């Protein structure tokens, strides 16, 4: 877990209670939480402007796909982990990035984020 220590991780999640849980998980993993962003507008702002080392993106934000946010982060070469209730439908968006099936455990989140960070640094 040490590889996530001090990393600034953006959380995009429209369900407040889930967002809070993810934030807690990240804190327990030693990371710093940016956000959480619960709307597309806010997510886009933060994706563009925030100083971040990684992101956990819920695929559907209030019935909209999170693609534009992912595109910005991809341009900025920020490692991303996607979270979804619908694993089959996001292969086109993820493009090899880790996908977490909701609900997921803190352990799974840690592994996925670490992998994403390693992948992007290679």
């Amino acid at each position, binding site marked *: 877990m040490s590889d996530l220590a001090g990393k600034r991780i953006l959380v995009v999640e429209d*369900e407040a209670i*889930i967002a809070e*849980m993810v934030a*807690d998980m990240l804190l327990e993993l030693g990371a710093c939480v940016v956000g959480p962003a619960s709307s597309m507008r806010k997510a886009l702002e933060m994706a563009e402007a925030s100083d971040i080392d990684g992101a956990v993106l819920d695929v559907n934000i209030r019935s909209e796909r999170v693609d534009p946010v992912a595109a910005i982060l991809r341009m900025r070469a920020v490692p991303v982990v996607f979270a*979804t209730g619908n694993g089959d439908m996001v292969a086109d968006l993820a493009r090899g990035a880790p996908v977490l099936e*909701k609900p997921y*455990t*803190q352990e799974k989140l840690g592994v996925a984020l670490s992998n994403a960070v390693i992948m992007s640094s290679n």
Partner: protein
Amino acid sequence: MVGNTLPIDGGESRASLAPNESLTQLQTPLDNSDSDRTELAAIVEGARDAIWSWRLDGTIIRWNSEAQRVFGYTASEMAGRSLLDLVPDDQRADAERIIASLRDGASYRHYETVRLRKDGVRVPVELTISPLRDGSGNMIGASTVCRDITERKQFEAALSKRVGELTTLFDFTARLQTSTSLNDIYEASLHAITRALDADRASILLFDASGRMRFKAWHGLSDGYREAVDGHSPWNSDAINPAPIFVEDILNTEEPEELKQTIAGEGIRGLAFIPLIDSGRLIGKFMTYYRMPHKFTEEEIGVANTIARQLALAIARQLADQDLRESEARFRLMSEHAPVMIWMSDAQGECLHLNQMLRSFWKVDEDNLASFRWSDTMHPEDAPSIVRQMGEALAKRTPVRIKGRYRDSRGGYRILETDARPRFSQLGEFLGMIGVNVDTTEREEAEKARELLVAELNHRVKNTLAVVQGIAHKTFKGSGIPPGPVRAFEDRLVTLSRAHNLLTQANWESASLEQLATLTLDVNGANSERVAIAGPSILLPPKEAVSIAMALHELSTNAIKYGSLSNEAGRVTLEWSKSDGPNPRIELNWTESGGPRVATPTRRGFGSFLLERTLAQDLDGEVTVSFEPEGLTCVIRAPLLELTERQR
């Protein structure tokens, strides 16, 4: 040629021969000599032809013995009589004209006419008439050489009849070839029968469906007669190759008197029954009728049989054609208004027939079918696959099922599922394909919508599980509850979520036990060395799938904590089997080995509760957990709800 002319007996000093070049050489030997005359008279007397000579007034002056034989008059009877006595009244004018023209120097060779015998019978004859002249060249009379040509005339008549019969048969065959209806066939046949068989009247009868002989066509029979003899037949419909029957005179038969009187009353004496046989099966008969008693000749019988063969064949062919046309018409009618699209193609795959529904799909007229190319309406993306599959079916002449999009008359694409089969003629020749298209656009859209709905539902379920997880997280946080139970709770949620994933993939109809076990026990991941699973392919209904997934999760969690997966060496095997029969059951065996020694726990946790109570209840089965010292075992037995065909 001897006897062509002869001198006139009775005092003329000289007789001279007619100026006939073929006789000039005879002039010298006959010249004015008594002995010559005697010789000539002997020749005339012994000639094969009847010969007589006559004066210009027509008085017979010489009559040879052949003339006596042919006409019945002796020479003395004829002496002094006019030759016109031999001429029938209807030939008299002609005879007088001949006599007059002879005076003008004419002569006749082989002139065919008719003369009367003494008994009044007409004799066909051939006459050669030459003038007789005196020494100064004046015509004094004529000689007639007459040959009886009765036999030749009879022969000629027979020959002409035969030619007539053959011509009639030939015409008959030609007419049958071109006839397009039963009535054409009947008319041609009646015509041929009456002409070739010289019959006054004729009729054609066929057996009806009940095996009764019915008049189909006739010439010259009264309604009353047909009614009276309706159904009368010398043969039943099951007679095999019956022979024709020729009745010379109905009055000389053993038939019932009433029938005889009916027939005779119609003015019929001679008649014939000619069977019509097709492939050995009697289908009917034709009849000929004669006013007078009629003796049938060999030739007539032959002709009758020939006509019967031709007629039976033509009727059978026509009926078969009619059947075919009717069945084709029935097919067209059915196909035309069927609520599916039906088509027929030729061997190259071009449209021969589209039913009404398919024509309106493509908005193509029946008249424009020849120029219509269905391949132009295929969706460009589907065209290669459709063309390839249809081409293969045409080449191999095999049935084919093709799905593809086609542009309809409104310009939109519709999904058509085509089921096509090869068509063959009776001779086995490949004619093309016949197929049915079903528009599955709505069905597929509905299926897609249902898939989307299920996916959306799954998304929501899992989001809700995540929310539940969040609530638990929030609730337990700072409550003093150690992280262990919280972790266990989360793991259970994840297991539940995974089972739902599998069910979603199969539209919430079923989940494969093998996949369920693999995912839940992480057999392909962390546990690949430690957990082995084996069993036949079984599809579990949704409720059972979730229950079993939860059970397997509890068993593996327990094994990791306390059982065979808690050390480095232990193993787990999961085996399952299915019993056959009308009420199949499944049995799962969970067996741990190589773990720490097992003691029966003093306290039962949620895991045990879930297994022994919830699972047993959910599955309507029994679950037995045994804490054997060498490892825990669990046996799950439950009825397996068979999935219906649709759900497979």
